[in-house]
């Protein structure tokens, strides 16, 4: 069991207490390709933040690769994020004044990997994602799809246990969205990478093998989606 969530509760207290996660139980096996689907306000972003050790939870237990992720210091949390989790964001979150290859190198920089070594690794990953020629370019010189692929390379470079993607296609057109989802699907199939995608688009969720529905802070239905036919728009259709 790679990820084990046991009765996770989270309440935000900004003047008025807001109970966002109301006892979430969820298990994800190694090598799974899962999507978490829900409307905005359903608590899916909060769940992703907790999975990504970006946020804390109030009660319950979260095991990642057998380690209990609870009451970590900021430094420990940073270390776990760096080694175990690769992030892909809706808005790419590349650093604008760094080139593609420098962006990909950054997680290794924080691991203390020597410059030459991490440059080689970053170039390898860019090459794999077909961006070798774009290594020296800055994010604002690239298309959305290219930027997202740079972000994926950055997420992969530390060989994390899981990839967390937060609306990875949210800022992309439908064709590029299909490309990116296919890329994630390939990574899951060929590299056995565990990938969790948070989305509100059924078309995106349909690409994944398992769809976890979250509604009002609790896990609802969990669909097995091996045949990829759960989308009302049919297979391969990502509706924008």
């Amino acid at each position, binding site marked *: 069991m790679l990820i084990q969530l046991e009765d996770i509760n989270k309440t935000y207290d900004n003047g008025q207490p807001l109970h966002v996660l109301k006892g979430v139980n969820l298990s994800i096996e190694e090598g799974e390709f899962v999507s978490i689907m829900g409307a905005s306000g359903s608590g899916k972003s909060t769940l992703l933040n907790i999975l990504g050790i970006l*946020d804390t939870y109030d009660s319950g237990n979260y095991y990642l690769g057998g380690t209990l992720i609870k009451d970590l210091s900021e430094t420990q949390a*940073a270390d776990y*994020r760096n080694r175990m989790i690769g992030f892909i*964001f809706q808005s790419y*979150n590349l650093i604008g*004044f760094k080139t593609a290859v420098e962006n990909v190198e*950054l997680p290794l920089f*924080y691991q203390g990997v020597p*410059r030459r070594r991490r440059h080689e690794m970053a170039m390898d990953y860019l090459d794999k994602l077909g961006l070798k020629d774009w290594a020296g370019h800055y994010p604002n010189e690239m298309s959305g799809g290219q930027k997202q692929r740079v972000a994926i390379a950055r997420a992969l470079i*530390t060989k994390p246990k899981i990839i967390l993607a937060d609306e990875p296609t949210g800022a992309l057109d439908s064709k590029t969205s299909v490309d990116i989802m296919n890329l994630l699907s390939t990574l899951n199939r060929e590299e056995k990478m565990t990938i969790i995608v948070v989305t509100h688009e059924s078309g995106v969720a349909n690409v994944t093998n398992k769809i976890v529905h979250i509604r009002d802070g609790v896990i609802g239905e969990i669909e097995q989606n091996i045949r990829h036919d759960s989308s009302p728009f049919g297979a391969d259709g990502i509706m924008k």
Partner: protein
Amino acid sequence: MKGLMKYFDVDRFREIYQTLVRNRSRTILTGFGVFWGIFMLLFMMGGGQGVKDMIQVELQGFATNSGFIVPMETSVPYMGFKSGRTWTATLDDIEHLRSNIPEIATVTGNLSVWGGTATYEEKTSSCQGRGVSPDYVNIEQPVLKYGRYINAVDMAQERKVCVIGKRVYNDLFEDGEDPCGKFIQMQGTYFQVVGVDFSSGNVSINGSADESVTIPMTVLQRLYNRGKTIDLICIVAKPGCKIKDILAKATPILAKEHYFSPDDPKALYNVNLEELFSIMDNLFKGVSLLIWVVGFGTLLAAAIGVSNIMMVTVKERTTEIGIRRAIGATPSMILSQIMLESVILTIVSGMMGILLAVGSLSIAENVASASAGVPIGFQLSFGTAVLGLIILMVLGLLAGLAPAIRAMDIKPVDAMREE
């Protein structure tokens, strides 16, 4: 230790260079404040030192714990004498003061003949004859380029010998020529030169050493029919004793000898060099304090400027810092990066300020030394420069502290909350 070293590798500096260069004009403007602050501080410090040196050259060789008594006209009637009477000090007064005031280290006389002309072969030099005794060296230390000073035998035998000042030497002799043994003529009398005094001090007590022909006091007294009189009484205090007290004790003694009222404010004129020197000393202390306050204030203002800009930078970079945190930067890494940015900005611009200050002071030093003829020290000591650097480093750290703490508080979720 290994973990700590991670913060000081080349990569960190590349990161910092990248961020500083990214906003070049802002970095330059911010750095300029620090640059100017340290430049002002160091330049004023060096300048103050140089001016002090220049004044000290003027005072060179002069006893600073000295006082002088000049006989004047009486202003009150006393013991049957009318006011407006003049009196003259004599060698006896010197003996009286010496035996009655134990605080005195040296008491001696000085008398002058003004408006003389010294002649050697065809060359002449306007000068003034000055009669002193050998212990006058305690008042005004001669810098003997050639020969010796007036000695006791000269006095006792009333030898017609002289020590000539620098200007007189330059007028009468070739540069580098040893005039000792040569005879120069002054007011119709020949004197054998026994020494050349090159002291460059500019304090003029009965004429400056520069343009003097100094001869034994006894000779001057005899040649010019001055009897045992002297123009003024010169006193040096023993260490730890105050000239002020000595002068206060001397007045009644002289008053008794010369029948003037000890309360007569105008019968004698006191010069208390010790007091003048201490006033000047205090002035310099005040000026250097002012320099520190102003210079350090400027520097502090510049550091606050750096802190302010770093604050804005951190605010602008919230997303970037959030991303860094999300992909594994620890809070201490973010803290040290912002601190290092601040320290490097401060030190680099400060170093340029130090360089400019050293350069300008070196020019000032050359100009001043050339015009004074002796080395004048404007330049900063190495220690001062290092102190400047330490101040910069501390200010840089302090300036970076608040922004760094703010940056450290940025949570990775802030990066995603952006849109």
